[in-house]
């Protein structure tokens, strides 16, 4: 069964700090996400959503329990394995985090360069094609400072998806955008993910975009609840 799942979280606990100051933030998390599924995780601030996302993304090492991402167990993985695991994921952040000294296309190419398997002209070609897909084909040589918030976030999506990752992790990608740009951004994300068949785990507070999800999970006080009713009652 787990072969169809790209993310399997089993009895995961996580704490910050040590000794008397130790504070558990995640309790017995169980979550299985199928390949190609779009899952939105919602819940109040401080409930542990982002922590779970960083664990799945390999930005922190998981402490106890089991965490399998595209078949690789990353609980107790070495720093080196974590770095490699990160390359399988595409990230989209609340802030676009584009490099201000690089043009849109150079930023997107950074998503390919990390794999070290493509020559520069090929990276350039793929990045240009990706920017075309997010509707920025005419602005590939713009610097981030000359793009609007929505356009920047679209470049960030292009950067995350250009290497065709199995998993896309997004943390409040629409938080800094107005309604229209936010809608455009998630639609692009949704369409491209469906084309590439990748799994999306999206953390958000934004109720306007919940409709793109195949499934909504709700987190509160470090515990996960899968009931959509609960998720909806929270709205």
């Amino acid at each position, binding site marked *: 069964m787990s072969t169809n799942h790209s993310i399997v979280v089993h009895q995961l606990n996580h704490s910050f700090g040590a000794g008397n100051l130790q504070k558990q933030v995640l309790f017995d998390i169980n979550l299985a996400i199928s390949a190609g599924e779009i899952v939105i995780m919602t819940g109040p601030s401080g409930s542990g959503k*982002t922590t779970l*996302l*960083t664990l799945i*993304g390999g*930005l*922190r090492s998981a402490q106890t329990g089991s965490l399998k991402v595209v078949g690789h167990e990353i609980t107790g993985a070495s720093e080196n394995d974590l*770095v*490699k695991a*990160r*390359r399988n994921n595409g*990230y989209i*952040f609340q*802030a676009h*985090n*584009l*490099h*201000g*000294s*690089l043009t849109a296309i*150079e930023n997107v*190419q*950074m*998503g390919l*360069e*990390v794999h*070290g398997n493509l*020559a*520069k002209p090929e990276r350039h070609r793929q990045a240009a094609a990706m920017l075309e897909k997010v509707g920025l084909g005419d602005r590939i040589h713009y610097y981030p400072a000359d793009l609007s918030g929505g356009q920047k976030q679209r470049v960030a999506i292009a*950067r995350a998806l250009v290497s065709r990752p199995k998993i896309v992790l997004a*943390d409040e990608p629409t938080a800094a955008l107005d309604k229209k740009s936010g809608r455009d951004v998630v639609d692009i994300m949704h369409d491209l993910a469906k084309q590439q068949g990748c799994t999306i785990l999206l953390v958000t507070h934004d109720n306007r975009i919940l409709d793109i999800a195949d499934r909504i999970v709700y987190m509160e006080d470090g515990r996960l609840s899968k009931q959509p009713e609960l998720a909806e009652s929270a709205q």
Partner: protein
Amino acid sequence: MLGLIKTLKTLGDRTPLGLKQLKHDRLRLLTAIAGITFADILIFMQLGFADALYKSNTQYPRALQADLVIISTQAKNFGQLRTFTRRRLWQAQDVPGVVSAEPLYLGSVQWRNPQNRQQTSMLLIGQNPSQPAFDLPDVNAKLDTIRLPDHVLFDQASRGSYDEMIEQVNRGERVTTEIGLRTVEVAGLFEVGASFSDDGALITSDQNFLRLFPKREAGAVSLGLINLEPEADLEQVRAELAARLPDDVQVLTQAGYVDFELNDIQSASPIGFVFGLGSAMGFIVGVVIVYQVLSTDVNSHLGEYATFRAMGYRNSYLLGIVVEEAIILSVLGFVPGLVIALGAYQLTAAATALPLAMPTSRAITVLTLTFVMCGASGAIATRRLQAADPADIF
């Protein structure tokens, strides 16, 4: 070898992030370049002065035309040679292989600049006019002239304004001035250069020297010049002379005597230390400025760097960016530093008559120092990279 080619290929294929970051913030780039240029000029000037000091204080020792040199055991340097008795030279002539042993008299005189009548301190050298003492063709061609009483040859690279006087001498006009109570005539010109202790030098005959120094005796010699038979073994005769002559003199080869002078400047005078310290200060100024620029640069890109790490870039990739910036800054700062230093050398040489030149070895030394300077600053600045933790930016 294959690994190197692969590395170079990877380097050529990578996005030149350091270059792009530097180019993006022109003001920061200019600040860094100005800082490095300034530091390099400072180091160049200090090294140049130190070298000029060594050179200018050994110019006459270097120009001596002799196989062996005899000086007093108490001699400190060319300016303070003390004297020894002329008998040692006669004794030296007794040693097999020695062809001649000639005395050289040195002393500092106050002379009046014929152009503006100002008193300056000049080194006065008295030599035997029948035999060349220096490897200076201008002097050796005029040896007959200085046989005449109170005739001197003038070092036209002396510090001070002598341009009119030099022209007059070149036109063949008679130029006279005063040394002490005597009137002397400038009978010819040669060129060596000023030193820190004397503004210039005059060469004359031993007889004229004794006329200008009435209290000096002909028997009190400053330096002895020994010439050997062509087939004589230099070291063997030197050892024999040293053994034969009493302990109040020492016998050195000409090269050994130049080393003796250099050694004295390096150890006895604080000047080597002072200029070394000056260079070190320039280096530290450079490190501080480059560190400021690089660490500000790292700080203002922490978010982006953390994103790169979240995407799967290694810490070494980020280190590479800082190293790249350090190398670019080194080169961009060094080139104007070198050009300006060359100009400053010429200006200083013209103003002070010090022999300032830019040997390739010094340029390479300073370029290396610049790389070390930027590398060190970069290494300190990369400690800030630890703060680029991707777990914190989500």
